[in-house]
């Protein structure tokens, strides 16, 4: 009985292959954008527009892909390293609908929900949380459907970078970190 079922399943699987291929072939090479990004605007459906705006703002962006094959941009040109994830992309990793700026900090004793809540209660734009793996995450989600003009997106970048810098101050104050040693004059 089991063998017969297996055979039936195998037949079904083989039969299904050409259908799947046909479907794949039917897809045009480049799916047209559902919501085309108007000229001069910044949209998640046009990763190049995000990249160009970040380049202009001197974030030295690196365009890459995340674990799922969706676009992703990395930068080291703020107080901390951060990533920009593209969300809501289709199966071809295109037509993404929103962005998520994210910075992660390794597991540490101060990474408690109370610490994250303290940030969240007093600061704007950037959401703090402690992940199951003990890392602290900071994120800022931005709706991108229809597009933002250059000036608005430049301010989005500005908020993210200034809140990362604010975070450095928050760490220092909350954790009573010592000031970095004064630079002594060269002899």
């Amino acid at each position, binding site marked *: 009985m089991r063998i017969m079922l297996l055979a039936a399943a195998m037949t079904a699987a083989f039969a299904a292959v050409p259908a799947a291929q046909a479907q794949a072939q039917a897809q045009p090479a480049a799916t047209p954008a559902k919501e085309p990004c108007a000229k001069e605007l910044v949209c998640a459906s046009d990763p190049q527009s995000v990249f160009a705006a970040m380049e202009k703002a001197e974030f030295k962006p690196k365009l890459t892909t995340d674990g799922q094959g969706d676009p992703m941009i990395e930068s080291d040109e703020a107080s901390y390293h951060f990533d920009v994830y593209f969300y809501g992309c289709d199966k071809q990793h295109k037509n993404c609908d929103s962005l998520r700026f994210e910075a992660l900090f390794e597991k540490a004793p101060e990474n408690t929900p109370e610490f994250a809540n303290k940030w969240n*209660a007093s600061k704007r734009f950037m959401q703090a*949380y402690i992940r199951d793996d003990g890392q602290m995450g900071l994120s800022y989600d931005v709706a991108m459907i229809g597009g*933002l*003009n250059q000036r*608005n997106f430049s301010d989005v970048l500005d908020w993210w970078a200034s809140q990362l810098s604010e975070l450095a101050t928050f760490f220092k104050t909350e954790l009573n970190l010592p000031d970095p040693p004064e630079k002594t004059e060269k002899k």
Partner: protein
Amino acid sequence: MMRSSMMAVALAAAIWTVPAAAQQKGDPARMVDLSRPENVAKLLQEAGYKAELKKHDNTGDPFIASAANGSPFTIEFYDCSPAKGCTSLQFFSWYSKKPYYSIPMTNRWNAQKRFLRIVIDKDGDLSTWMDISTIGKVSFSNFADTIDWWQSMSGDLFTFLAEEEKAAGGKK
């Protein structure tokens, strides 16, 4: 007490405004300016939400009273001047203290959900926020998408809170 009667009024208003959501005038691709509270109120109405422009008694700062999912929320404006308008706005809603509210609970939300930042404030109430830059311009469809994120994440929050309450053993 005051709060629950205000909630009831907002709830009734929200239900009455629902049919307006189906209407949409103007071109969704046009660029809109969110730096003026009175403009944002009009755009909210165009997107099908009620919007009442008010001023805070203590500071005189403008805000908009609206509602989503039958629950009131406000839009607060920051860094405002008569010449330049405001440089950012904030969607804000809060829910009075419940025994099952906890900081680990807000962290469970903040670690998994996007857009909506939630906290337990110093009074033990639950506050929720979403911040938006209003410098430059965005397309109308982008503003509609932003409101949609607020509305859908606030709706998600109710489901999340119901589950948290159940997990806490029905502590109301």
